[in-house]
């Protein structure tokens, strides 16, 4: 079901003033906002012993489920990159008694939305159903997770779609910039490998590999679940047991090797004949559990975060008109964390743009934010959280992220106080710590006056 082309076409019909996240998608920033009010989160343990978090809301007769297994693309064997992505793409292409067509026919007939995806360290899934179809919805999810068929035709379909995507990405400047950034930052480490593999690695993947992967990763021990909507804990517990109860208790995960980010201070240019150069830049980030995390989050917000008032936005876009978008965000994994951002600008202004960005990083590292910036960032971050909780799906996603990050079920209540507790001294210390070690920059296009150079150059 590839509708990539359509997405491109639609984009030409609409144009937006400001596309906050362009051109990079920085994942995992969601779990960070927080209202003083609102959602009542319950921790429930099913009769079968599976914990899940839920929010009951009978306003609209629907149920949203979000879940995550630890695993993700870092568990791909070294010579079989793309295995996780190919596995999740095939789980719903036939399961139990149903072939792929019958499976999708059931989903559609009952208007059930089931999506599975792999990111670096987790397999994530969402299920959305009308209340009246909940039995069928959970049953189809159960089949996909417990009895996937991995039939040859379905496997080849998934492979063909992943290969098509890889080929498309091979000449897409955003993909090239991003892939090369990760490869340079984590050479030889699973974090440095492309999540969807390569043409060669995807060609090697077999149905048995996928079965093995599913068996290793889909296990109860690392499972995090949220259920939101028009359902009570008893019914939810029964569904959860039936859906997840028969999975193995423990996963078999390869430990992720320790690593540290490489290439800080270096720059790599990849030639591609496009009018606009695409730039990915990044440096060290901070662990989610680090006591300075909130201070770092505030610093990033002021430097390059999502609002239209960040320093990078002002310098690069507002004052000089060098780019449509520029932003930066924090990402955190088990073994590494990074602050990563991107922009895109015409060939002749690429050097100026990169220099501006590097200057802003340096300036923030040495001086930190101002008192006024800190105060405004705090009110922003406190106020913005509510916007992440206004639909059932968003709440469910938030609850799973809070479980993954081990923030505690009362995190939403504590969050505002955590933000308020950050001092100017905290932000200065953490700005120096994060931003003082330089940036790794990748550029794709025909930039004028920008050349590759090593960390010393």
């Amino acid at each position: 079901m590839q509708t990539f082309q359509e997405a491109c076409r639609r984009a030409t019909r609409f144009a937006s003033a400001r596309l906050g996240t362009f051109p990079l998608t920085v994942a995992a920033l969601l779990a960070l906002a927080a209202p003083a009010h609102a959602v009542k989160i319950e921790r429930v343990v099913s009769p079968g012993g599976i914990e899940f978090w839920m929010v009951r809301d009978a306003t609209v007769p629907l149920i949203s489920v979000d879940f995550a297994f630890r695993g993700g693309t870092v568990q791909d064997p070294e010579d079989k990159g793309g295995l996780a992505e190919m596995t999740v793409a095939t789980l719903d292409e036939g399961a139990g008694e149903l072939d792929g067509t019958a499976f999708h026919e059931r989903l559609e007939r009952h208007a059930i939305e089931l999506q599975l995806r792999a990111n670096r360290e987790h397999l994530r899934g969402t299920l959305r159903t009308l209340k009246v179809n909940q039995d069928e919805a959970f049953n189809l999810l159960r089949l996909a997770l417990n009895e996937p068929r991995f039939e040859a035709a379905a496997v080849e379909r998934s492979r063909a779609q992943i290969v098509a995507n890889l080929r498309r990405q091979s000449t897409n400047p955003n993909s090239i910039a991003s892939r090369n950034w990760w490869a340079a930052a984590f050479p030889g480490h699973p974090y440095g490998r492309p999540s969807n593999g390569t043409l060669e690695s995807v060609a090697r993947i077999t149905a048995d590999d996928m079965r093995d992967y599913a068996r290793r990763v889909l296990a109860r021990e690392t499972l995090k679940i949220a259920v939101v909507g028009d359902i009570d804990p008893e019914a939810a517990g029964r569904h959860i047991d039936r859906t997840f109860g028969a999975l193995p208790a423990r996963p078999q995960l390869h430990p992720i090797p320790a690593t540290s980010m490489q290439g800080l201070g270096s720059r790599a240019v990849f030639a591609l004949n496009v009018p606009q150069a695409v730039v990915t830049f990044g440096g060290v980030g901070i662990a989610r559990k680090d006591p300075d995390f909130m201070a770092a989050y505030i610093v990033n917000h002021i430097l390059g975060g999502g609002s239209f008032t960040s320093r990078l936005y002002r310098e690069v876009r507002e004052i000089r008109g060098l780019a449509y978008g520029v932003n930066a965000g924090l990402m955190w994994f088990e073994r590494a964390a990074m602050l990563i951002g991107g922009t895109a600008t015409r060939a002749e202004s690429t050097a100026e743009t990169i220099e501006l960005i590097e200057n802003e990083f340096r300036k923030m590292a040495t001086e930190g934010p101002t008192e006024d910036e800190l105060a405004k960032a705090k009110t922003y971050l406190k106020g913005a959280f509510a916007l992440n909780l206004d639909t059932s799906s968003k709440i469910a996603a938030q609850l799973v992220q809070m479980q993954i990050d081990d923030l505690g079920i009362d995190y939403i209540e504590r969050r505002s106080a955590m933000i308020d507790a950050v001092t100017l001294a905290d932000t200065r210390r953490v700005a120096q710590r994060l931003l003082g070690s330089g940036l790794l920059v990748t550029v794709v296009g025909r930039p004028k006056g920008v050349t590759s150079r090593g960390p010393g150059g």
Partner: protein
Amino acid sequence: MLHAMRRTVVALATLPLMLLAGSSGHGTETGSQVSYFTLANGLEVVVIPDRRTPVVTHMIWYRVGSADETPGKSGLAHFLEHLLFKGTKKNPQGLFSRTVATIGGAENAFTSSDYTAYFQRTTRDRLKLMMEFESDRMTGLVLTDDVVRPELKVVLEERNSRVENNPAARLAEQMEAALFLNHPYGRPVIGWRHEIEQLTREDAIAFYRRFYTPNNAILVVAGDVTAQEVRQLAEETYGQVPRVAEVKPRVRPQEPEQEAPRTITLSDPRVTQQSISRYYLVPSYTTGQKGMAETLDLMAHILGRGANSRLYQKLVVEAGIAVGAGASYYGTALDHTRITVYGAPRPGTSLAQIEEAIDATIAELIEKGVRQEELERARNRIIADFVYAQDNQSSLARWYGASLITGMSMEQIRTWQDRVRAVTADDIHNAARQWLDKRRSVTGYLIRQSGSRDDRS
């Protein structure tokens, strides 16, 4: 399943934009008490209560889009949208955006062929503040060359990002231009580069004075509010803005009888995944006879939305010749619009084979119509979107806004479900015969430019 993100984008774009009728009969609050009224100065107001979380979505929609531009000034509607963020006499230099950021709100704007809209999402207690700012910039915009010049560069970078860096988007732009022989929908919303480059501050101001007036706008407020509150706040803010222009009927040059199928080929060395797509000129919700757009929605769904659709089943699953195939209908338009069909071949399959398979699928639809069970499945799916939409105040606000601004009445929105239920298999068969006529179409081929040097390093 692959490409969840992309599919989501498409789903939003292809959903009928008027899912949201009155009460759903489930005793729900959201979407069930929609109010509509008009202020003395002509501003229309829609209020959509959703009392679950203390958040509001505040949108102002103007009846002006790229199809209302003077020939030679393409991109002006969108450029002006960017400039609306530059400040007014009362709130100079981006004070509005800085305030939104400080309170933790989210904001943006978008332009289409038929409308321009601005929105903020904030906690409910900030609604009045947002209304004060937004009503102020309805007529109070102040522009200097110092802010206009860099913003023009931003728009050119946006064009680079959206179109010129992307061969598929370049093809789509050429296809739209070819589909509309006479209607201004053939112009890209973002504008042609050579015309954007010539836009001036004076152009923007003249355009602004012509179209930005309360009697040419619709205010939509969704979220934790009552109609009474919004009416009072609207009177105090927008109600004080005088009409500054008379609004003329939006009469655009219409399409002549189209007599010849057109084909467009875009070849580029960066095309690694070839594809074919076709646009058919068809009626919209506004131009179609009663029930026609609903019929086309169902027809496009059966033909090409998702894994059960005919195109996906025939090309991707059964024949195994494509990595993707589908169709979509964009019904929310003031004038005639389009149905899109597309397919992307697997390696070893030619575009001609894909086109042949698409043609055969469409010929079968024209010859034999649809099966009753297909129709029921599609109908269930489309009507279920109505319930899902009630979970999302932003979606509700957008759908009401886009529907009303392109000429639907509240009554038509309210009775949308009834018309979807009334569509018969015969209706779809007749619509297919009438509208899937190649003489009213343009077919685009995206191919790799052969014999070109590999321009990657």
